[in-house]
C-alpha cells in the first residue's frame, strides 16, 4: 500500500521493505540512516513517532502526514552508537537521552547529553544493555542535574516545583525561570516514576505482558493493553475475533469518556470553578460504576489479552451500557453549555497556554494536544484498526491551540465516543472472544488511540513465544516537551491550568 508515498519511495531505494500493513519495516545501513536524517530536515511532513533501542539496534517509527504511510526503520549499532535524530526532530531529544541511559547506545550529535531517566540511583549502569550486570552503576545525588541556564538583563528568579506536589498527582519536577509573574522558561525534569517497564517485559509470556501493559499508565489501562495485544498479534500473525474487537472498542471508548470527564472537571477545578468538577465527578463515577459492573473492574484492567479479551458482555450488561450511554448523551451537551456559559472560566482558558500548529507538527504530538492545534491525527482514522475500520469516527479538531481548545476537544469527544459505543452495541458480533496464540518468534507494532493520544507499542517475541523486548511509547512522550512551550510568556499562576489541559502521564513517560 501507499507505494507512491515519498517516504516509501525513499526507503525502498535504500533497502528491501517488509510490509505488515499499515507498517513498512526497513533495516537501513548507516549511510541510509544519515540520509534519512538529512531528508527529515527538509521534509516537515515526515513525523517521528517514536525512537527506541534494543541492545544492538535502534528503531524509529515514522509517519508521512501527507500520504499517510507508516514505516519502522532499524539500524544496527555494532559500535554502540547511532547518528542522532535530534537535529531534525526535537521530539527525539528525550527519546535519545532515555536510550543512552537505559541501553547505553550513544546518540552521535545529540547536544543535550544530560541523563534523563537515570537519576543516579540505578543498580546497574545501563539496565537494558546486552549484559547489564557487567556495568557497575555510577551513583550520584538525585538532585545532581544541570538545568538549562538563562541569559537576561533583568534579574530572573527560579521557582522549583515538585517532584512531590501538594495534590494527589504523580511526581515530576518543574523548574521555572520567571520575571515576576511572567514565565521566561519552564524546564521539566521527569523520570521519578521510572520502574523499568521494558526490563520487566523481558521474558514474560504475552499473557503476563498484558497485565504489565495495563499498569504502564493506570488511566490508559485498556488502551495500553490493546496496543500491546495488537503488537503481539501482529508479531505472530493472528487476528482477534470480531467480538473481541468490538468489546475492546467499547472498553476503549468507555475509558476515553471516563478520563475526559475527569479532565474537564479537573481543568475547571484548577481555575477554582469546583462546580464543574462536581458535575463531571458524578458522571465519571457513573461511568466507572458501569465499567465495573459490565467488565469486572472499574478501570477495566486485565480485560484485554493478546488474542482477544477475557470478558464478555451479558445481555443485561448490554442494557446497562445502553442506559448509561443514553443518560450521558443527554448530560454531555449540558456539560458543554455549563462550560460555555461560565464566562469567568472561559476568561481563564481562552488564549492561555497556546501551542502553535507548527510546533505540534514538528513534535508530532497527538491526542487532544495535537487536535487543539490543528493536527487532526487520530490513530483510529490514520491507521484504522478493528473495530474502527467499520465505524464512522468523528475527530474534532480546533486550531486555537489554547487550554480552551484542548478542553473543547475533550468535550466533543465524549458524545463522539458515545455514538461509537452505541454503534458497537447495536452490531455486536456473536462468536468467540479470543483465539489461541501460536508460539513463534516475530516483531510487531501497533498504533492505538488512547484518551491522551496514540500509543505506539512495539514488541519482539523470541522463538519460545516470550517477550524479548517491548517498547510502549505513551503519547505523553511527545506532548510533555510542548508543555514547556505552552507556558512560555504566560504567568506562573496559569501553569496548573496549562498542565491540567495536557494531563501528561508521568508513569507512561518514565516507563
Amino acid at each position, binding site marked *: 500500500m501507499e507505494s507512491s508515498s515519498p517516504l516509501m519511495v525513499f526507503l525502498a531505494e535504500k533497502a528491501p521493505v517488509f510490509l505488515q500493513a499499515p507498517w513498512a519495516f526497513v533495516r537501513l545501513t548507516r549511510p541510509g540512516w544519515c540520509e534519512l536524517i538529512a531528508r527529515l530536515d527538509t521534509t516537515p511532513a515526515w513525523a517521528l513517532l517514536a525512537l527506541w533501542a534494543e541492545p544492538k539496534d535502534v528503531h524509529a517509527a515514522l509517519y508521512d502526514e501527507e500520504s499517510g504511510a507508516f514505516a519502522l526503520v532499524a539500524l544496527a549499532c555494532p559500535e554502540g552508537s547511532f547518528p542522532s535524530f535530534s537535529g531534525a526532530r526535537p521530539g527525539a531529544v528525550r527519546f535519545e537521552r532515555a536510550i543512552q541511559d537505559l541501553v547505553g547506545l550513544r546518540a552521535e550529535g545529540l547536544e543535550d547529553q544530560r541523563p534523563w531517566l537515570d537519576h543516579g540511583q540505578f543498580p546497574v549502569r545501563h539496565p537494558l544493555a546486552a549484559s547489564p550486570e557487567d556495568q557497575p552503576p555510577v551513583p550520584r545525588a538525585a538532585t545532581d542535574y544541570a538545568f538549562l541556564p538563562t541569559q537576561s538583563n533583568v534579574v530572573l528568579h527560579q521557582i522549583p516545583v515538585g517532584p512531590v506536589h*501538594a495534590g494527589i498527582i504523580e511526581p515530576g519536577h518543574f523548574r521555572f525561570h520567571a520575571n*515576576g509573574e511572567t514565565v521566561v522558561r519552564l524546564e521539566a525534569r521527569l523520570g521519578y516514576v521510572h520502574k523499568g517497564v521494558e526490563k520487566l517485559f523481558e521474558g514474560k509470556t504475552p499473557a503476563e505482558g498484558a497485565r504489565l501493559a495495563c499498569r504502564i499508565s493506570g488511566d490508559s489501562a485498556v488502551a495500553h493493553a490493546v496496543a500491546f495485544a495488537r503488537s503481539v498479534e501482529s508479531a505472530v500473525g493472528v487476528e482477534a475475533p470480531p467480538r473481541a474487537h468490538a468489546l475492546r472498542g467499547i472498553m476503549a471508548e468507555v475509558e476515553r469518556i471516563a478520563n475526559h470527564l475527569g479532565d474537564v472537571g479537573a481543568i475547571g477545578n484548577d481555575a*477554582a470553578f*469546583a*462546580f464543574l468538577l*462536581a458535575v463531571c465527578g458524578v458522571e465519571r463515577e457513573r461511568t466507572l460504576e458501569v465499567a465495573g459492573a459490565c467488565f469486572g473492574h472499574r478501570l477495566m484492567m486485565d480485560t484485554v489479552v493478546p488474542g482477544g479479551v477475557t470478558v464478555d458482555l451479558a445481555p443485561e450488561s448490554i442494557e446497562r451500557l445502553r442506559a448509561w450511554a443514553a443518560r450521558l448523551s443527554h448530560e454531555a451537551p449540558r456539560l458543554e453549555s455549563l462550560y460555555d456559559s*461560565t464566562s469567568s472560566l472561559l476568561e481563564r482558558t481562552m488564549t492561555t497556554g497556546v501551542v502553535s500548529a507548527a510546533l505540534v507538527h514538528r513534535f508530532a504530538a497527538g491526542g487532544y494536544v495535537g487536535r487543539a492545534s490543528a493536527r487532526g491525527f487520530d490513530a483510529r482514522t490514520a491507521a484504522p484498526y478493528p473495530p474502527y475500520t467499520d465505524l464512522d469516527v468523528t475527530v474534532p479538531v480546533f486550531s486555537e491551540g489554547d487550554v480552551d481548545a484542548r478542553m473543547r476537544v475533550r468535550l466533543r469527544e465524549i458524545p463522539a465516543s458515545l455514538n461509537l459505543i452505541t454503534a458497537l452495541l447495536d452490531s455486536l458480533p456473536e462468536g468467540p472472544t479470543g483465539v489461541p496464540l501460536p508460539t513463534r518468534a516475530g516483531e510487531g507494532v501497533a498504533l492505538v488511540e488512547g484518551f491522551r493520544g496514540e500509543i505506539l507499542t512495539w514488541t519482539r517475541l523470541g522463538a519460545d513465544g516470550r517477550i524479548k523486548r517491548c517498547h510502549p511509547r505513551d503519547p505523553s512522550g511527545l506532548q510533555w516537551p510542548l508543555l514547556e512551550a505552552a507556558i512560555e510568556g504566560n504567568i506562573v499562576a*496559569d501553569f496548573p491550568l496549562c498542565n491540567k489541559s495536557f494531563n501528561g502521564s508521568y508513569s507512561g513517560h518514565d516507563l
Partner: protein
Amino acid sequence: MTLFSLALDVAHVGLTVAVAPLLTGWVRWVKARLTLRRGPSPFQPYRDLRRLLRKDIVLADSVSWVFIATPFVLFAIMALAACLVPTFTPSLALAPTSDLITLVALLGLARFMLALAGMDAGTSFGGLGSSREMLIATLAEPAMLMVVFSVALMAHTTALPNVALFVLAHPPVFHISLVLALSALVLVALAENARIPIDNPTTHLELTMVHEAMILEYTGPHLALIEAAAMIKLTLYVALIACLFAPWGMATDLSDARVVALGIGTYLGKLAVAGTALAVFETGIAKMRVFRYPEFLGTALLMGLLAIVFLYVNQVVS
C-alpha cells in the same frame, strides 16, 4: 469605663472570636452542598484548630523572629480589631479611642507582618505569595479608604458606632452612594479575605496561591493562630459591612436582656446570610487571572469614588 461595659466588651470580642470558625465552617459546608458533596460539619474548623494546637512546631532553619512573632501579632491584631467593630451592639468601650481609619491601619499592619513572614523562610512560593499580596494591598487599600470617606461624609463621623447609629436613625432609603460604597466594600472584602475570584482558599496548587503561599511554612499552633486570625478577619468584614450598611437589630438598650438577645440573634443571622451569599457567589465563578486583579479592585476604587461624587452631586442638587 464601668465594669459592666468592660464585661460587655470582653463578651463582644469573645463572641466574634468564638463564632469566627463557625462562619468559615458554614461557608465550606454550604459550598460542599452546592457542589453536590455532603461536606464536613460546619464545626469542623474548631476540630482543625484543636488538632493544630496539639501539634509540634517545625521551623525552617532560615527563619528569623519575624516568622515566629507574626502568628501572635496577627491574632492579637484581629482580636483588637474585633473590639472596634460593633457587632450586636454599637456601645463599645474601646470604640471612642478609634475609628474606621484605625481599623484600616490595623488590617494593613497585619498584612505587612504576614507578607514579611511569607518572605522570611526564603522559599520561592512564600515570596510569590507576598508579592501578590502586596499587589492586592496597593489596589485594595485605596478602595477601602474611598469607602471610609464616603461613609464618613454621609454620617459626618468616622467612628463606627456613630455610623451605625446614624444609619439606624435614618430609615432605610435607597441612596446611590450607599449602594456604591457597599459594592466597593464587598469587592474589597473578597480580595482582603483571599476569596474567589482573587484567591482560592481551598486550592492545593502552590503556584496559584496568594494567602496560602505566604503561610505554607507554618505548622502546628503557629498555623492555628494564623488560620484563626483569617477566620476572625472574615467575620470582621461581615460585621463591618453589616454595621455600616445594615445595622438593624443592634441592641442599643443594653439594660433589656431581650433586646440584647435579639441583637446577638440578628448578628448571627447576618453572618449566616453573608456566609451563604459568599458560598453561592464562590461556587458560580472561577478565579481570575493575576493580571486582572487591578481591574477587579480598580472597579472597587471607582465605585468608592463615584459614591463620593454622587454624594456631592446630591447635596448640590438638593
